[in-house]
């Protein structure tokens, strides 16, 4: 199971890198979305996908899944959500002010 997840995550990373290297700002932001998606799935996978019940003590099960990565992912999701929201608004403002969404036209230090 981990193998499948690794291939899937690798595919997500490849698409993210491809999109982030493109010229349009919106495609770049979609790329960052895929990148964080891959990173979160990676956290889940690397902690092991062993079978067990959901981490709720009321379940009274013999084995539970590891609760730590789930907490880490939850933290990372809200952080990347906040950053993505900021980035989208920034892209909107930049589009209004600079009149372009082409990253090639955003050069120079003047």
């Amino acid at each position, binding site marked *: 199971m981990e193998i499948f997840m690794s291939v899937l995550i690798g595919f997500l990373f490849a698409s993210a890198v491809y999109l*982030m290297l493109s010229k349009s*700002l919106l495609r*770049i932001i979609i790329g*960052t979305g895929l*990148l*964080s998606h*891959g*990173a*979160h799935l*990676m*956290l889940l*996978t*690397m*902690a*092991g996908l062993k079978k067990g019940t959901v981490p709720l003590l009321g379940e009274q099960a013999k084995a539970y899944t590891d609760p*730590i*990565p789930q907490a*880490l992912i939850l*933290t*990372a999701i809200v*952080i*990347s959500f*906040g*950053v993505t929201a*900021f*980035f989208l608004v*920034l*892209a909107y*403002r*930049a589009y209004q*002010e*600079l009149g372009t969404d082409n*990253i090639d036209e*955003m050069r120079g*230090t*003047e």
Partner: protein
Amino acid sequence: MINLLILPIIIPFVAAVILIFFKKDIVVQRWISIIAAAGGLAVSIILIRTVYNEGIQTVNLGSWEAPFGITLVSDMLSALLVTATSLITLCCILFSFRSIGKERESSFYYPVVQFLVVGVNGAFTTGDIFNMFVFFEVMLMSSYVLLVIGGTKIQLRESIKYILVNITSSALFVIAVAYLYSIVGTLNMAHISQRIAEVDQPAILTVLAVLFLIVFGLKGAIFPLFFWLPGAYYAPPAPIMALFGALLTKVGVYSILRTYTLFFYHDTGFTHELLTILSLITVVLGSIAAIAYKDMKKIVIYNIIIAIGVITYGIGAMNADALTGSVFYLIHDMLIKAVLFLLVGLIVFITGSTDYTKFSGLIKHYPLLGWSFFISVLALAGIPPLSGFVGKILIVSGGFSKGDLVGALIILMSSLFVLYSLMRVFINGFWGDPSGSMKKPELKIGSMLFPIIILVISSISYGVFSEWMNMYITQAVEVLIDPTVYIDAVLGNAQAP
């Protein structure tokens, strides 16, 4: 008091929350920021004394035993860095009063500065690798806002690049933590170190060490990951630039220092050699760029990159001399980069130009400014009684005792380039024909010069009393050389499961 080391994090945090409620009342905002920054400075000085007298301070949040909860750890290194951060913040806030402008002040400038300090102090103090990621994000999120606040075209453009680079490096940080968790199964830094020592760093951990180097190198701007820095630091106004230049990259360097001395010290043949080579290239490229520009901001920005290279070279050398030198130089560099950015900001405020060929003879009209600039350039280059000297000589002697002749000579040579790059600014801008710059009687720079003078004086005394500072820094280096000190302080003598 056991909760002392939380105070440098909690004071700016509470201040920031309170500041949000006083959006329009600028006077109240200024007073609260100053009181919070001064309080943070006082607490961190007490923290240094406590760590000096009683050893490493730890707090297990929520009273959970060490590897299971989040532990905050304040050894001498982080206490010193927290103090430097608080001092620089205080001076930058004082400088902002006159220079940042009403519009920015009334759009949450001061709360965001306080949140930046929360992130930086937290990253210096935490003992948990994922918690460090969270504090990095607190710091970065505030830096995004500070970079774009005001919304001019150049700021919008550079923020986009800066955010993109940092989102990528944050994703890489999460990936690195995921790998590390799958190998050692813990997040507490002392516990990670203990478990890595048990398995004696197999190849996968060397890969991970390089991944961490990439992550922190992106934050700290070492070769080949510094491409984002010159543009991003060029955009914001002077006090924000000073905060960035003094604090942000140094957090990356601190993280490299921490991980490479606490986690990955078993098989140093590959990782530390790589770090040494990368830092030398960083120094060389930084030196070339620093003398290539006629723009004062650019010159100081590339001087940041040179200093990063010098510090990481000391980390790569990994002997007592070089590490002591790195810690000395790290703190010196935080102070002096804040001074230089504030000075450049003040010169631009007076002359209206960042190009030093556009004005001359400033010292005739502004002698105090001129001499502060002169002293800080000498301190940056490492002229003996001043602050940059001790750190650099220890790093160089550490390099020589490792047998790395070429590397140590490159570090020495870089001092010449540093001195040349900024002395040019002094000679062209401050000497020469006084008619090249006007004395404007309506410009009262006293209140803006005051924080610069504080920083220059602390930098001078840091150099002059380096013998006295040495007793603190020796204690900081002890932990870096012998990680068991750190592990024992966090996990106690009881063997963790």
